[in-house]
């Protein structure tokens, strides 16, 4: 598999109380466990099963993903800008790997 690279699009600055949209994408095959190879053997499931967002260490949003989520899972959501700090994004793979990205946000 190609090197997994998470991508996050979030504003660097926001006004106090503003509702901001955060878009995330990670390249991953999201192998559903439903497909068969040319020999008729089922290809084992390997997906990103959980995505968690924390702001200064406190969980603000998360998503549980199932095999029906498309390859290269995209998740977009909103946050109300109430404090400056670090947003940490973590993706959890079925194989135990964890992919992480961080963005800082300044709330004025």
């Amino acid at each position, binding site marked *: 598999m190609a090197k997994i690279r998470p991508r996050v699009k979030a504003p660097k600055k926001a006004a106090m109380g503003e509702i901001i949209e955060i878009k995330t994408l990670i390249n991953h095959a999201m192998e559903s466990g439903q*497909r068969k190879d040319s020999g008729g053997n089922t290809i084992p499931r390997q997906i990103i099963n959980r995505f968690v967002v924390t702001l200064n260490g406190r969980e603000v949003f998360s*998503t*549980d*993903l*199932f095999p029906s*989520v*498309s390859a290269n*899972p995209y998740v977009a959501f*909103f*946050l109300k800008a109430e404090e400056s700090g670090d947003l940490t994004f973590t993706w959890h793979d079925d194989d135990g790997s964890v992919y992480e990205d961080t963005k800082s946000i300044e709330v004025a």
Partner: protein
Amino acid sequence: MKDELETGGVSRRTLMVSLGGGAAVTTAMTLVPGLSLAGEAEVQAIIDQMAEGTPVDGGVELDLPEIAENGNTVPVTVTVDAPMTADSYVKTVMVMADGNPQAEVARFNFTPACGTASASTRMRLAGTQTIIAAAQMNDGSTMVGRKLVKVTIGGCGG
């Protein structure tokens, strides 16, 4: 008995399309060679498990294309019409697809810090089917929204 009631919500067209495709999706127990689909009953079971009390229809908006040409990646946005305050907020939204092998697609877990209960993703759809979103408030009450999406080329198997 239960199946009879639940298929009441399925339009004649949906039913005919499923039947035409050789996949009678009348019950979750129906086994189609190679691919068993979730069906209405499984969706209802998940909603019943989530809900405290009776789930209410409405208040959950699903933004989906009317016709999805490629079932491999169908954009979906779910928005719940509810306040997001510390006292009253949307806790989880489960997005389900009754015509996929597994009903669950994604479960969004919100907190009051989100400001608004809205999230988007992209999903695989095996064929024309109804997408169901069940939203649970922090007090346990549950709202359900449904929308039919027509899929030209399914996104399963291969």
